[in-house]
């Protein structure tokens, strides 16, 4: 209170300016009714405007020049050569980058940059003839030299997925439009491997020179129907059609925006408010809100996602005992598990899903049978008074429900499950790298990945009864010159793995896609790994 009171008093009235000011003012005690009326009128007006405006916009449906697609797993950068994660394959392969060959909707091989190919009888030489008019989005011609440079640097610098090219010996270009890949031993999966990152062709004229090379983490230069116009990490990517695209799969929509939603509610709100036209994946429970609405299409597609209950087969673990692992497989009611998730997923009895070579229906090997489970556990030395105590460690991306459900199912077979949900990177360290775990859940979404079971260092620690046989069969399968022989061998190995109860295969996850009714051309099968967007059209 530093101000001095210098007011003086005359006839009982104060001359202090602050107090006098207050005295002069008229009393404002009467409530201003017109303010309240104004507020109410404004509210009603807002209501009416909101009600009427959308209805007046009923026009003839037209093809939109922009489609927005909502996805879940975001890539952290665009570097498809240096960074792991199927989010990059999903976004870039077939849209921005193209390979020698591509994958079709049933996981087979189809032509892409190479219009045709031949395989020598001994299975050691693959000769591809390239399309002659292929160009990159910057106008550069795409020739065999680009393919050779791309594959050679992949192998030399050990870029991501270089190990998919098993038995690789050399790559060469006899002329501008012929590429020859030579193998040291046959590898029946080579063509399929080339549909992924290993077969992508980059612009060698730009990328081989350090001065002109693009920053692959933030931009992407390819030969595909789309080019990346902008990229906000973890949020969105804008793809613009390449007007001079060389091939037949020209982009049908000028702009495709891909947005990533970590929150499922936000994703659903985005679809219902029309901010996105496609949502993949959407959980079955959330999809029900759209299923009975004619303004939307909901479809489930096949895929190679295997939800695996990994078990630590190491001898010093309780799960090292085959009887325990078998008991766990008998104790799990897979049908109930699938039903509780909405019923779209498929039963899976072994390591190979129906879209992969070597598939065989193995669901009959370990049917749900609690008595048998208890019996096996008793043999192994566990019963009601001495229950088996196990810990289930898995990444938080899969939610807590699945772990809770397994706990309650296994409880009935006298197994006490402690569920430990951790961050993905913690899981990667503890379970995957250090192999310090009993049980774990992982969505192994890779296709053609059976060889992991033939790797004794893989996190399952599978060195059990038939491990040597499995290794031998797999090695034979992967170096067989005939694809059908290879499939038979893989099927035999897969049966052994399932019989040994190396893991339990909870289900074959099927991805559910929800779309606005005017959308067509969006791939429904396997769209979490291969998502060609050139055909996507939205009419509204």
């Amino acid at each position: 209170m530093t101000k001095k009171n210098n007011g003086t008093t005359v006839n009982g009235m104060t001359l202090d300016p602050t107090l006098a000011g207050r005295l002069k003012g008229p009393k404002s005690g009467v409530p201003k009714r017109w303010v309240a009326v104004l507020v109410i009128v404004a509210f009603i007006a807002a209501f009416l405007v909101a009600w009427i405006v959308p209805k007046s916009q009923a026009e003839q449906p037209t093809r939109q020049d922009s489609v927005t697609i909502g996805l879940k797993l975001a890539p952290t950068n665009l570097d498809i050569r240096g960074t792991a994660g199927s989010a990059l394959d999903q976004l870039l392969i077939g849209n921005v980058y193209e390979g020698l060959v591509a994958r079709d909707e049933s996981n087979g091989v189809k032509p892409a940059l190479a219009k045709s190919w031949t395989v020598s009888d001994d299975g050691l030489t693959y000769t591809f003839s390239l399309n002659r008019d292929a160009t990159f989005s910057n106008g550069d011609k795409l020739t065999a030299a680009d393919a050779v440079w791309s594959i050679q640097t992949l192998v030399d610098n050990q870029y991501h997925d270089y190990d998919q090219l098993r038995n690789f010996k050399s790559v060469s270009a006899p002329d501008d439009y012929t590429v020859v890949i030579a193998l040291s031993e046959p590898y029946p999966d080579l063509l399929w491997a080339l549909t992924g990152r290993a077969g992508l062709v980059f612009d060698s004229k730009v990328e081989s020179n350090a001065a002109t090379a693009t920053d692959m983490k933030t931009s992407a230069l390819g030969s595909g129907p789309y080019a990346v116009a902008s990229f906000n990490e973890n949020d969105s990517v804008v793809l613009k059609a390449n007007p001079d695209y060389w091939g037949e799969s020209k982009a049908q929509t000028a702009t495709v925006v891909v947005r990533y939603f970590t929150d499922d509610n936000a994703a659903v709100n985005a679809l219902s408010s029309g901010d996105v036209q496609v949502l993949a994946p959407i959980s079955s429970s959330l999809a029900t809100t759209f299923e009975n609405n004619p303004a939307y299409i909901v479809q489930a597609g096949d895929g190679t996602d295997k939800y695996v209950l990994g078990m630590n087969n190491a001898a010093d673990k309780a799960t090292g005992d085959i009887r325990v692992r078998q008991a766990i497989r008998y104790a799990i009611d897979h049908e109930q598990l699938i039903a509780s998730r909405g019923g779209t997923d498929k039963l899976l009895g072994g390591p190979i899903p129906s879209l992969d070579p070597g598939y065989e229906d193995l669901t009959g090997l370990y049917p749900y049978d609690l008595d048998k489970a208890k019996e096996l556990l008793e043999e192994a030395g566990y019963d009601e008074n001495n229950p088996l105590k196990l810990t289930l460690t898995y990444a938080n991306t899969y939610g807590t429900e699945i772990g809770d459900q397994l706990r309650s199912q296994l409880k009935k077979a006298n197994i006490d499950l402690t569920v430990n949900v951790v961050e993905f990177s913690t899981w990667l360290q503890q379970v995957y790298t250090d192999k310090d775990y009993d049980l774990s859940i992982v969505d192994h979404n890779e296709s053609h990945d059976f060889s992991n079971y033939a790797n004794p260092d893989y996190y399952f620690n599978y060195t059990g009864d038939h491990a040597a046989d499995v290794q031998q069969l797999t090695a034979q399968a992967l170096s067989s010159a005939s694809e059908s022989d290879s499939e038979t061998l893989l099927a035999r190995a897969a049966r052994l793995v399932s019989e040994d109860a190396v893991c339990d295969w909870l289900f074959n996850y099927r991805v559910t896609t929800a779309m606005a009714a005017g959308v067509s051309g969006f791939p429904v099968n396997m769209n979490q790994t291969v998502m060609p967007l050139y055909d996507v059209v939205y009419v509204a």
Partner: protein
Amino acid sequence: MKFTLQRLGLLVVALAVVSVLIFAAIRVLPGDVAAVMAGMNASPARIAALRAELGLDEPLVVQYLSWLKGVVTGDFGTSMLTGQPIAAIVAGRAAVTFPLILLGLAIALVLGISLGCAAVLARRCWVRSLLQAIAVVGGAVPALWAGLLLILLLGSGTGVLSVLPTQGFPQDGWASPGRALTCLVLPALTVGIIVGASIMRYTRSALLDVETNGDVIALAMACGMTRRRAMVTVGLRLATPQLVSVVGLTFAEMITGVMVVENLFALPGIGTGLVTDIGQRDLIAVQGELLMLAAFFLVVGFAVDVAHRTLDPRLERAA
């Protein structure tokens, strides 16, 4: 002046301590950015090569010192995963979070102070009780729930009155200011209502505090003011220092506190970004972001202290 300098010194010391804590804490966590980058099928050799490339194989002290050197010269480094400078990443996210907080805080202040005053000054007893109940209930509502309710009420597509966008932020950010602003209205309302409820309680108790402790209000009334007038003009002025501390700290807390709201409305802000970066063990990014947050927190605390002094000269005399 001496006070300000003293506080500045403390701020620098605190920042140094915090930088060590941050650096150590995220290295204690299990998990490895190289393993995340290389993916599940990577060979150990590839992971080791990546670690070397990222400088993760060097001794911790060397890593710390080189990071600190960068920070002191204003270079927070580049993210291991995105390859973009940390400062640019944080700036991009702050362009969403800060406007959201400011908008939310504005709503909270308008709601909180006016209702807080009303809760003390309303003539009827039941109005006061009702307002008090609103303050308690409003403070207990989880942000997620409030947000969902607002979406059901006002969100376009789902809402009863479908007027406002419920998620996302324009691709080009503030280049389209109208759209950017409408995207922030619902999230800001969500934040504003919840924070407003707590400011309402603080306002109420601060006002009552001024009235019961000391004779200021009685004196003002003796000078001819009504109780209401005395409370609003004199009482609020005297309660301001208390409110400034509360608002200052609320502001700092909101930066990470609005994370739930950012997630719900799919806004690419600081909170969601930080969680993603920690999940992926992007060490350089997390270090930079946490240090900036800590610095911000400390600066706000410092500003509140200084503001206190200016607003309440009695403190200076007491010292």
